[in-house]
């Protein structure tokens, strides 16, 4: 992994090279908020992760059903119609081995349990930051 000039905790460009994945990684952002979708997508792409973004959970399920694969899937908790945990459940039911990260605006233990029970690997509160993303990309990269 190319960590020269950067650190796992941050992405300080002033220190030289920005952290970037060494392998071709892919990610899917599922969020009905345009601002969150745009920021999470830009953040992942800045680390060399090819990222797609969709708004509803159904679109994410359809995407995977069509054969698309992703190393990382970030799913918002409160999605319209098909909520986050249900989206994760359906993705897992298709046999997807992606790392699934549930995400929410207000951390709630009950929501965390719901997401983990649905097959998610983790659950975090927004905003998505380099401190959260970089260790995940590191893990996927290796």
């Amino acid at each position, binding site marked *: 992994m190319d960590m020269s000039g950067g650190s796992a905790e941050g992405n300080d460009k002033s220190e030289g090279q920005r952290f970037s994945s060494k392998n071709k990684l892919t990610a899917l952002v599922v969020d009905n908020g345009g601002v969150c979708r745009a920021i999470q997508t830009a953040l992942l792409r*800045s680390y060399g992760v090819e990222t797609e973004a969709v708004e509803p959970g159904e679109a994410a399920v359809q995407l995977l059903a069509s054969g698309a694969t992703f190393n990382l899937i970030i799913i918002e908790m409160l999605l319209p119609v098909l909520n986050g945990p249900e989206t994760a459940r359906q993705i897992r039911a298709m046999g997807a081995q992606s790392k699934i990260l549930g995400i929410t605006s207000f951390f709630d233990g009950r929501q965390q349990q719901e997401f983990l029970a649905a097959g998610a690997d983790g659950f975090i509160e927004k905003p998505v930051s380099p401190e959260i993303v970089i260790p995940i990309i590191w893990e996927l990269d290796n």
Partner: protein
Amino acid sequence: MDRNHLKRQVDLMKRSLFDQGYLDEQFIQLEELQDDDNPNFVEEIVTLFFNDSARLLQNIEQALVSVPIDFARLDNYMHQFKGSSSSIGAKRVKNECTRFKEYCTAGNAEGCFRTFVQVKQEHAILRTKLETYFQAYISFMCVFVLVIFALTYICLLFCLYLFSWQDKLDHLGLQEVKLDDYMDEGGSLIIDLYYKYDKAHMIE
């Protein structure tokens, strides 16, 4: 217009936004994502935020005056609003959203009304401050670009002027003479032009 003065102004404004608690480190993360491929990323995201949040605030306001109040719907709207606020680093707005959520979860309508006033207030203040900040930033960038353009133009004129000397000397029948004799004591001549002085042509 003093470019350095403008830059200081922009830096002071930004520092003030952080010192007064309007923004947190998440805003810096947005700036880190701005590069040559996305030169206006921060402004675009902030503009998107204020467009989206205006709609959400309207939805929340309508939900608050509905009878009976649908706290689940209110919670959903605030969930989305808080998510985007925290994602752009709108610290004070985010904090008011958290207070609102507590009243909403408790089914406390009066508390919701009260904190919603604060949410709207912080949102409006942040909007004004960021609009002013971006206007100053754009002014600085315009001056910066103008200065670069002016310097480039001056260099181009200088090069054209130097090359025009060659034409004038050729016209006078001069061949190459070495211009080392014209170097100042510091030897700071940037371009060496070599011409030879042809006495035969001068006689003619």
